């Protein structure tokens, strides 16, 4: 197994003048469960496609399990060891899930019939109905079954639970944890459901307009990150490298601080500001603050500095 499951350096992709991904640096260790977050169009899907050779990078390098997807022989080895669920989850409409399973297993040497049968039962998939006749939720479940039964070393999942009801979402998340996380497999998933990400991920990266705004351990966000709300005249846009985001709402300015929030608040008080609140942040609040467009104080990989990638374990 490679030292790094997913590695990108200076990864960029442009479609004409539009930069979809810009200077993206990721270093995801084997066994990590990494939530890749961002608004629609942030560049998450493009990044995932670059990892799988579906899109070629404009600049930068990519390695998956130490292999380069730009080289065809290496890409084939990646695809043997990586399972992918795409955002569209589009499979052959004429095929039944049972036929799709038979078709899929021929591609993968580590395919598990037991896992496929178990998942079909657990997710309540009608295995003999044509894919096109299944509900969106059942189509999603089939796509997940095909990916999970591969017994892949790395799972790349683009909004894997979209279209599923809460019971099934819970079932899927438990499957991830029981069958994959517990076996040390790497999961790289994008989702708009932040509660799910909080439930299973140990790392998060927040992408906006193709740039990684923040990358941190989820535990570190819970313990260290604070929201500081201050009021006063002439408050600084960005005070220090520990400030991940600063937004203005009338006379108030909200700062997301990665560490030493009390020290930062003291500095603001020293400048005549009144500190109204210092509170811990959930992932949802952090995401909302980072994704707001006003007064972006930390463009680029600011979060990577706040939580250096070398601190991965």
């Amino acid at each position, binding site marked *: 197994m490679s030292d790094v499951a997913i590695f990108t350096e200076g990864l960029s992709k442009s479609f004409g003048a539009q930069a979809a991904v810009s200077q993206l640096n990721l270093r995801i260790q084997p066994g990590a469960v990494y939530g890749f977050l961002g608004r629609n169009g942030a560049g998450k899907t493009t990044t995932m496609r670059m990892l*799988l*050779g579906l899109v070629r990078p404009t600049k930068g390098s990519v390695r998956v399990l130490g292999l380069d997807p730009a080289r065809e022989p290496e890409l084939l080895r990646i695809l043997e060891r*990586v399972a992918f669920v*795409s955002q569209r989850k*589009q499979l052959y409409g004429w095929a039944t899930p049972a036929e799709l399973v038979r078709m899929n297993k*021929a*591609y993968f040497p580590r395919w598990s019939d037991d896992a496929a049968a178990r998942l079909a039962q657990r997710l309540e998939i009608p295995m003999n109905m044509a894919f096109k006749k299944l509900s969106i939720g059942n189509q999603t479940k089939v796509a997940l079954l095909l990916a999970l039964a591969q017994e892949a070393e790395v799972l790349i999942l683009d909004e894997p639970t979209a279209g599923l009801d809460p019971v099934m979402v819970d079932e899927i998340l438990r499957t991830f944890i029981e069958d994959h996380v517990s076996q040390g497999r790497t999961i790289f998933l994008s989702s708009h459901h932040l509660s799910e990400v909080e439930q299973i991920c140990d790392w998060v990266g927040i992408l906006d307009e193709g740039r990684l705004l923040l990358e941190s351990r989820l535990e570190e966000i819970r313990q260290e990150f604070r929201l500081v709300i201050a009021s006063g005249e002439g408050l600084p846009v960005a005070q220090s490298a520990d400030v991940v985001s600063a937004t203005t709402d009338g006379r108030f300015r909200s700062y997301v601080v990665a560490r030493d929030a009390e020290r930062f608040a003291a500095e603001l008080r020293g400048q005549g500001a009144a500190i109204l609140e210092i509170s811990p942040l959930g992932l949802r609040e952090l995401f909302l603050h980072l994704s707001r467009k006003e007064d972006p104080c930390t463009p680029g990989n600011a979060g990577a500095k706040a939580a250096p990638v070398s601190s991965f374990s």
Partner: protein
Amino acid sequence: MYAWKCWRESRARFIFLLIMFGASALLFTLMHGLTEQDGWWHFDRTEYTRDPATMVHLVSGMVLSVLSFSGFLSAVFLGATASGSEIEPGTIEYLWTRPRTRTSLTWTHWGICVAEMVLVAVVPTYLAAAILGTLTRNWNLPVLFVAPWIMVIFGLPLLGLTTLMTALKRSASGGLIYTSAVVGVYLIVRQIITVPTHLNLPTLFAGPLVWLVTNNQPLAVAFPWGSLARAVFLAAALPLAAQYLLKRAEV
């Protein structure tokens, strides 16, 4: 497994073509023996034994006039299921994340289509030949024996063209429409050039088919080798172009 998927997706078209050309071949072979007597249709075999050589010539010509379309129709309808057609509906993300090269996918599909084209050409023609030979007791049927292979040779460049157009347009319907448009424009331009000027241009790659249909005495007339060479070149070049296009495609 991809071969099975190609078969599964194209089998309805294949069976339709096989039944359509098989029924046509049967009809044109047996219709000369159908006679009406006292308001009832019955089959009179003596029509075939009275002048077997003329009957073979007549029936062969009629069967060929219908089956000559098999190469074109098989190529276009079967070729439109090539992997490029999966880009627009989105199944390509599934297909291209299986550990198989895009080149192997392109040529596996091509191979399945060629096999189906051969069957669509061979089965109806040889069925007609078998019935005609039995009825006339004349097995001197060179036109019918050679015909399916010439239809396949004619169909191969069109299969390549459809594969290429499907990759360019990224959909089955786009591939069908653009292949038909390219063929239509080519025929119109050719007519515009040749009719007013009375030019006798050689065909691009349809020479062997024209030779087969117009002569009906293939061994007596020189075979258009130049046209055959162009057909072979296009049959290889067009799928290679599609392969290159798909290998570089981003989705």
